[in-house]
């Protein structure tokens, strides 16, 4: 049969038809046929990482900064197990990923063969769906379905495990448009279906006296149009708006209605407004525990509207009054339409009183920190980074910990898709490979990974990748020689016993950069800081900027675990009562 091609060729053809431009991967025995086919073509670029964990975070960074699906290609056994963290990360943060893993040939499956593992078994709970493809003729339909599932509804990672014999076998390729995916395997939202609920919600908003919009990452996943519509609707209503860590950028930080981020390290005014509002409009957020604090004291007097594409998020932790299941852009478009058709008008007087109250909360100036002396405060470092990069097209990624929270607090995002951080899983080591992915997707943009000294070491091997592909990623390390967030919790909750949170024998980051043939810079005092940042931006290759910051700075404001929104700690001096601190200690 002359129209038959090999499984490996089907893989590449499927990727090409799906519009894939780049694959992040690492070869190995069980994917050699696919790598061989990759070698013979030019349409798909491959980025060779230094560890599979880097590949999947890079694919996440690529996906979240471009809105496309990230593709990963790794081998069986350790190749597959190394991507498990990234898959879980993508699952938690709803990132569309297709991950291809090689598998030992079918006759060896189950025999504990070399580099064999039960990949589909291991990844079942950390993927939206996964496949073990045993028939080469099903390969193309599996790929097309996988891409659809990864992007459809609430996006997420999908894994395709392909035994080596299937990669060698010959079969027929089926085109994307020939594949019919049964409707039960997909989520197809219909705004008409929820029309009554949407009307109810809009009417509730129009009658509110103290409304607040609570915006999450779902608005970013719904695409740039969703952000535009959300901004438009909030402007029409004139309501204050707060964003989750994942939702930063949906509404511009400079927008007069924006109160910034909410939650554990969110803004005082945002959390107080959440606590005292009478109508809460949750768009694409999921009442995460970092946002809600203690559930029984969460926004006690409000009616809650919850727009989410995933029904399982409705009433999962917080009971809501008006649930709407659907895609943000469709639902919000409908809301604007209904608002305009009915000529709804919010009670101006009440709204003014509400804003007056918020203005008072703002005066607390919750991000205030002591910036005396010439030692660099981490907050100040982020502020300077923002000031010196705000006029450039900049993508910010982060690792996880104090630096991540300072970045969220002090870097001002004006647009969606510019802020990439591991929110749900909290994966240290995410930021640098994610920055590589973002840089691959946006070669001309400035991509900065705001990192901590501990986190950066978790995927430091990707320096080699960044240099190989001439990716001018900037690593901006807030170096305090501690796992800062762990140290902070130990200080606040464990009597200052800093068990294993100090990193002795850190590398010399400047020399480390140089050993990879990248550029290393260092700022030791506030006098050096602006020069180092400017030099970092102007350098055309990969840069590590080692910023020595004060060692024992804490990240405030903070809602301690087990506390409510109106029980924020603004500084260390404001001790919590001991009883609730003890209670909070068992929580994460």
């Amino acid at each position, binding site marked *: 049969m002359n129209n038959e091609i090999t499984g490996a060729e089907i893989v590449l053809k499927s990727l090409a038809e799906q519009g894939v431009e780049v694959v992040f991967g690492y070869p190995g025995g069980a994917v050699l046929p696919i790598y061989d086919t990759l070698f013979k073509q030019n349409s798909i670029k491959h980025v060779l990482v230094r560890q599979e964990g880097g590949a999947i975070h890079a694919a996440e960074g690529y996906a979240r900064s471009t809105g496309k699906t990230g593709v990963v290609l790794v081998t069986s056994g350790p190749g597959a197990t190394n991507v498990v963290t990234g898959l879980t990360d993508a699952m938690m943060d709803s990132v569309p990923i297709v991950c291809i893993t090689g598998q030992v040939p079918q006759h060896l499956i189950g025999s504990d063969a070399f580099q064999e593992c039960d990949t589909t078994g291991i990844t079942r*709970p950390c993927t939206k*769906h996964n496949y073990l493809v045993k028939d080469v003729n099903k390969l193309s339909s599996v790929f097309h379905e996988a891409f659809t599932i990864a992007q459809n509804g609430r996006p997420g990672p999908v894994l395709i495990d392909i035994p080596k014999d299937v990669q060698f076998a010959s079969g027929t390729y089926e085109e994307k448009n020939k594949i019919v995916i049964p409707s039960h395997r997909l989520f197809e939202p219909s705004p008409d279906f929820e029309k009554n609920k949407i009307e109810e919600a809009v009417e509730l908003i129009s009658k509110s006296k103290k409304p607040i919009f609570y915006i999450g990452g779902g608005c970013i996943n719904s695409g740039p149009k969703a952000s535009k519509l959300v901004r438009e609707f909030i402007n029409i209503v004139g309501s204050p708006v707060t964003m989750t860590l994942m939702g930063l950028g949906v509404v511009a930080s400079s927008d007069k209605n924006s109160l910034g981020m909410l939650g554990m390290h969110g803004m005082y005014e945002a959390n107080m407004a959440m606590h005292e509002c009478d109508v809460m409009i949750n768009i694409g957020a999921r009442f995460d*525990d970092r946002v809600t*604090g203690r*559930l029984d004291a969460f926004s006690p007097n409000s009616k809650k509207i919850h727009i989410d594409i995933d029904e399982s998020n*409705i009433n999962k*932790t917080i*009971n809501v009054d008006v649930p709407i299941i659907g895609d943000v852009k469709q639902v919000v478009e409908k809301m604007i339409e209904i608002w305009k058709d009915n000529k709804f008008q919010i009670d101006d007087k009440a709204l003014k009183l509400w804003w007056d109250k918020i203005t008072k909360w703002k005066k607390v100036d919750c991000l205030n920190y002591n910036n005396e002396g010439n030692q660099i405060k981490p907050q100040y470092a982020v502020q300077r980074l923002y000031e010196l990069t705000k006029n450039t097209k900049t993508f910010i990624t982060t690792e996880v910990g104090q630096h991540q929270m300072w970045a969220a607090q002090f870097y001002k995002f004006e647009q969606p898709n510019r802020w990439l951080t591991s929110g749900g899983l909290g994966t240290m080591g995410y930021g640098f490979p994610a920055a590589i992915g973002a840089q691959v997707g946006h070669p001309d943009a400035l991509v900065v990974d705001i990192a901590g000294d501990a986190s950066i070491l978790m995927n430091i091997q990707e320096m080699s990748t960044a240099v190989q592909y001439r990716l001018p990623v900037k690593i901006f390390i807030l170096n305090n020689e501690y796992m800062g967030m762990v140290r902070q919790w130990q200080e606040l909750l464990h009597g200052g016993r800093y068990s294993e949170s100090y990193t002795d024998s850190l590398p010399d980051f400047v020399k480390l950069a140089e050993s990879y043939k990248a550029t290393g810079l260092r700022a030791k005092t506030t006098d050096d800081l602006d020069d180092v940042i400017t030099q970092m931006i102007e350098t055309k290759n990969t840069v590590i900027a080692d910023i020595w910051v004060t060692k024992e700075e804490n990240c405030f404001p903070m809602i301690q675990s087990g506390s409510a929104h109106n029980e924020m700690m603004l500084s260390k001096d404001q001790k919590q009562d001991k009883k609730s601190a003890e209670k909070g200690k068992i929580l994460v």
Partner: protein
Amino acid sequence: MNKSVYDSPDQVSETKRHILTVLVDNEPGVLARVIGMFSGRGYNIDSLNVAEVSNDENISRITIVTHGTSEVVSQIEKQLLRIVPVHSVTNLDQEGSSVEAEVALVYIYISETNKKKVYQLCDLYRARKIENENNTTIFEIAGSSERVNRFIKEINEITKVEIVRSGPVAISSIKKNEEE
């Protein structure tokens, strides 16, 4: 509810038994997906039954008996629907009335002294003796779980037994338009 460590410990509503019927594509791994969701999220499975519904459509029916508050069970239903090969989830306790039955096979240790009592009880419960090549006394009893429980309790009082139970299957008893 009550799934977050931040939750208040107050029970929201009472814990009840629920029977869920889940229709799934009959593909490899689908059962693991379903039970993995239960164990991963800390839900209970009291019993589980899987059988193919029809050969041509390649669909299986999973009947799960679980218990939990209505909030927990509603969360279970929604989590099940997230699984790609799941067609539908029906909570038979919310559908209104349903009929359920299970089968138990009971190996009864029989002697001259208890023989009469055993056969009387089996008669009463319409437990049927299953013929087998070794001519051992194995009985089959079908019916609601409660009925099977009662039978087992009473036979246990008479003699030693070994039991295997299928766990219940159930179907909605609401009248349907038969022309459909």
